[in-house]
C-alpha cells in the first residue's frame, strides 16, 4: 500500500531522480571551514522565520511603529524573537563576510564557479542594505536619524540622487511613507532578491557538484566521503553553535528600544557598527570628494572581488596566492582599523558619552511611561507630554533668565544673573519655612534680588519673627511651624500626600493661626478670611490651578497687581491665544514639573 503511494508520487513528480543522484563529495574531504556556507544559509532561514513572527505584531507608521514594537516585547517570547532577529541580522553580516573570506582563500571562484562566486559576493552588500531598511522600522530617534543620513547619502549620488532620495523617503522628510517604503523593501523586495541570489547559488552548486565517480576519474586517491551525512553533520553542528550564540545574546540582552522619534529631542546619530568603517572613511574625504568614500571605494572593492576569477587567470599559482591572502589581510585589517578608530574616539569623547547617557535616560523614561498605556496618536507624544522631561527644558527656556531651580545638593538650573527666587521645592514645607525665616527671606534665593526685598512682607517677617522676644521665640517658632504646615497643605503636593494626611490636626491649628493669632489675613486672603488687594491670595497657594493662574498673570488682582516686580505675564490673553508667551500645554508642563507631579 505504502509502496503503491510512493510509486504514484514518483511517477507524478519524479522525485526519485533527485534522491537517486550519485552522492556529492567535497574533493578536499569534509571540513569545518566548509561549514561557512551552510551556517549562512540556515541563519538566513531563521532570520526569515523570526521576521515573519515579528510581522504578526508590527505596524509600520510613525504613530504605531514604536508602540507596536514596545507592545510586542511584552508578549510571551516577543522580546526573545525580536532579540533573535536583531542579533541574527548582525550574525548574518559576519557569516557572509567569513564565507567570502573562505571562498577567496580557497580560490573557489575558479572556473567554472565564477557565477557562484558572484552570487556570494553580492550577498554581503545586500545584507547590509537589508539591515539599513530594518533599523528604522521601530520608529526610534536613532533609527530615524540613521535613515535620514543614509537617505541623504543616496541623495548625494550625481544626477539621479535627489530623485532617488525623494522616492525612498516618500517626500521631503522622513515619516510615515518612509516607514512603509522601508517595510516593503525589508519584507518583500530584498527577500526576493536574496532568494534569487540563493537560487543562482544553489543551481550553480548543483551544476558543478563533484561526485565520487567524477572525483575518482580526476585522479584523487582513496575513498571519498559523501557530503551527506559527513559534511552535513558538520554544517548542522556548526550552525547549532551559531544559533546558540545568537539565542544567548537574545536572552541576555534585549534588542534595544531607543526613545520614540521626535524632532524636538536631542540626537546622537551613529551608524550601526557594521557601517562604522564607511562612517570613518567618509571623514577623510571632505566636500565634493565625499562621494569617493561613500560610493567610489565601496564600488571599487566590489568590482575587484567580482573580477577575481579574471585576475586569477592571468596570475601564476604563487602570485594568485599572494594576491588572495594579501587582499584578505589588507581588507580585514583596514576594516578593523576603520571600525575601531571611531569607537575608541567616541569612547574618549566626554560630550558624546554624556549625550549618550541623556538619550538612554530618555529611552528609559519613554518605556516607563509606555507601561501605563500609549495614546492612539503614538509614542512620540509620551515624552512630549511628560513634565519630567519637558519641565527642565521649558524652565530653562522661559524662567531661568531670572529664577533658579537648585536642589539642596547644589545641582540644578541657574542662569547667568539670577534676579528671582529659587523655585526648587516651591510650596513645600521646607520652602515656605525658609520664606518665613528672617535670616533667609532677604537672601538671593527668596526675595533678595527683587523689589520685595524692602517690602512689607520682609518687614513683617524680620520684625514680627526676627525681633520677637527671646522668651516668646520658642513658642512663636512652634506656631509658625504650624502655619507653614497649613499653608503648604494648600498646595496638595504629591510628595507631601502622606504627611499632609497625617498632620490634619496641625493643619487645622495652623489654619486658625493664619486667620487669627498670626494675622496673615490682615493682608492676605485665605479662604473665607481676609481680602484681596494688599498681597497675593493664599487660598490654594502652590496648588496646580493657583500656580497656573499665577504664572499666567502675576499682575492679576489676585496676586501682585501693580506691585508686581519684573515677572512677565505668561498667559495674559484668555484661552490658548497664540499671543501668550506660553501655550496652555507648556504652562501646565512647567507647573506640573515644579510641583513634582509626574
Amino acid at each position, binding site marked *: 500500500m505504502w509502496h503503491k503511494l510512493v510509486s504514484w508520487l514518483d511517477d507524478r513528480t519524479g522525485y526519485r531522480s533527485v534522491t537517486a543522484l550519485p552522492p556529492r563529495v567535497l574533493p578536499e574531504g569534509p571540513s569545518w571551514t566548509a561549514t561557512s556556507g551552510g551556517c549562512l544559509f540556515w541563519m538566513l532561514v531563521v532570520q526569515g*522565520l523570526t521576521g*515573519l*513572527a515579528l510581522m504578526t505584531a508590527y505596524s509600520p507608521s510613525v504613530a504605531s511603529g514604536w508602540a507596536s514594537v514596545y507592545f510586542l516585547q511584552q508578549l*510571551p517570547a516577543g522580546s526573545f524573537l525580536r532579540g533573535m532577529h536583531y542579533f541574527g541580522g548582525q550574525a548574518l553580516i559576519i557569516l557572509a563576510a567569513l564565507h567570502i573570506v573562505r571562498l577567496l582563500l580557497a580560490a573557489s571562484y575558479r572556473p567554472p564557479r565564477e557565477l557562484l562566486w558572484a552570487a556570494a559576493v553580492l550577498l554581503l552588500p545586500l545584507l547590509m542594505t537589508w539591515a539599513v531598511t530594518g533599523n528604522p522600522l521601530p520608529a526610534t530617534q536613532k533609527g530615524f536619524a540613521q535613515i535620514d543620513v543614509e537617505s541623504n547619502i543616496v541623495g548625494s549620488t550625481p544626477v539621479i540622487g535627489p530623485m532617488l532620495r525623494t522616492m525612498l523617503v516618500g517626500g521631503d522628510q522622513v515619516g510615515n511613507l518612509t516607514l512603509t517604503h522601508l517595510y516593503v523593501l525589508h519584507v518583500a523586495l530584498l527577500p526576493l532578491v536574496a532568494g534569487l541570489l540563493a537560487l543562482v547559488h544553489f543551481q550553480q552548486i548543483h551544476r558543478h557538484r563533484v561526485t565520487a565517480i567524477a572525483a575518482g576519474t580526476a585522479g584523487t586517491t582513496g575513498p571519498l566521503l559523501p557530503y551527506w*551525512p559527513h559534511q552535513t553533520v558538520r554544517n548542522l553542528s556548526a550552525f547549532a553553535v551559531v544559533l546558540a550564540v545568537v539565542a544567548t545574546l537574545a536572552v541576555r540582552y534585549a534588542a534595544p528600544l531607543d526613545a520614540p522619534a521626535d524632532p524636538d529631542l536631542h540626537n546622537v546619530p551613529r551608524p550601526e557598527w557594521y557601517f562604522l568603517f564607511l562612517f570613518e572613511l567618509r571623514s577623510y574625504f571632505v566636500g565634493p570628494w565625499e562621494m569617493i568614500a561613500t560610493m567610489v571605494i565601496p564600488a571599487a572593492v566590489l568590482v575587484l572581488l567580482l573580477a577575481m576569477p579574471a585576475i586569477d587567470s592571468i596570475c601564476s599559482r604563487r602570485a594568485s596566492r599572494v594576491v588572495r591572502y594579501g587582499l584578505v589581510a589588507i581588507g580585514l585589517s583596514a576594516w578593523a582599523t576603520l571600525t575601531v578608530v571611531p569607537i575608541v574616539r567616541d569612547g574618549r569623547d566626554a560630550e558624546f558619552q554624556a549625550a549618550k547617557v541623556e538619550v538612554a535616560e530618555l529611552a528609559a523614561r519613554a518605556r516607563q511611561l509606555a507601561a501605563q*498605556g500609549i495614546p492612539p496618536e503614538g509614542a512620540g507624544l509620551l515624552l512630549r507630554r511628560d513634565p519630567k522631561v519637558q519641565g527642565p527644558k521649558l524652565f530653562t527656556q522661559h524662567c531661568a533668565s531670572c529664577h533658579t531651580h537648585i536642589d539642596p545638593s547644589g545641582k540644578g538650573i541657574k542662569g547667568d544673573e539670577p534676579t528671582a527666587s529659587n523655585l526648587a521645592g516651591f510650596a513645600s514645607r521646607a520652602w515656605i519655612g525658609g520664606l518665613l525665616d528672617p535670616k533667609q527671606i532677604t537672601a538671593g534665593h527668596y526675595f533678595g534680588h527683587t523689589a520685595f526685598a524692602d517690602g512689607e512682607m520682609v518687614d513683617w517677617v524680620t520684625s514680627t519673627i526676627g525681633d520677637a522676644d527671646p522668651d516668646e521665640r520658642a513658642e512663636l517658632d512652634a506656631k509658625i511651624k504650624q502655619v507653614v504646615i497649613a499653608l503648604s497643605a494648600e498646595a496638595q503636593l504629591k510628595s507631601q500626600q502622606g504627611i499632609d494626611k497625617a498632620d490634619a490636626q496641625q493643619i487645622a491649628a495652623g489654619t486658625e493661626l493664619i486667620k487669627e493669632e498670626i494675622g496673615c489675613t490682615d493682608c492676605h486672603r485665605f479662604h473665607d478670611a481676609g481680602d484681596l488687594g494688599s498681597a497675593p491670595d493664599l487660598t490654594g497657594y502652590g496648588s496646580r490651578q493657583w500656580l497656573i493662574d499665577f504664572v499666567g498673570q502675576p499682575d492679576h488682582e489676585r496676586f501682585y497687581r501693580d506691585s508686581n516686580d519684573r515677572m512677565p505675564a505668561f498667559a495674559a490673553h484668555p484661552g490658548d491665544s497664540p499671543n501668550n508667551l506660553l501655550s496652555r500645554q507648556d504652562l501646565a508642563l512647567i507647573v506640573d514639573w515644579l510641583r513634582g507631579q509626574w
Partner: protein
Amino acid sequence: MIRRTALKWLCATFAAASAAVVAVPVLQLIAAPLRRRKSDQRRVRRVARLGDLPVGKPKEIALVGSRRDGWAVYPNETIGKIWVVRRDAATDQPAAAKVDVYTAECPHLGCTIGLGPTGTEFLCPCHKAAFDLQGQALPSDALGYENPAPRNMDTLVCRIVQDQASQSWWVEVEFEKFEYGIAAKIPRMSAGG
C-alpha cells in the same frame, strides 16, 4: 570514524534542536491572544440617577471607558451598551427600588438589541431575535420564524447606591460580557495580550 547512521541521527538531532529554538517561541507568540486576563473583567459603573428613570420604560445607556486595542489605549470609548428598566414607582425607600439591567449585546451573535417599533418588546436588528420587556426570549422572532436567540437577554448585577456628595440615588451596574450562541450564560473572558 563514526558510522554513517550515527551521523544521520546526529544531523537529525541538531536540526530538530535548532528548529525548536525558533518554532517554540513563534508558536508562543502567535498563541498570545489566547491568554486570558483576569483584570477588568467586571467594570462597575454608576449609569443613571434613579430619579431619571421612567417607570416601565426601558432606557438605553452607553457606558464610556478606556479601551485597550493592542498597543494603544483609547481613553474615551463606548465600551458597552445596556438597557435599564425601572419596575416600580418612586417610593420614600429609594434603596429598595426594583431596577432591571440587561446588556444590549444579543446572546445570539452579539448585535446591539434595540427597542421594537411598538415599544413593547426588545428587537435585535441582525436576525430579528425578539424579547419581551422582561428580557425573556419570545417563542417566535419578529418575522414569525423560530427565535434565533439561544437564551434570554443577559441580566447584569445592579445596585442602588447613594452618592456621598450630592445625596442623590444612582443605579450602579457591574458590566460584563457573555459568550454568544449557547444556551448557558457564561462570562466571556477578555483576551490577554
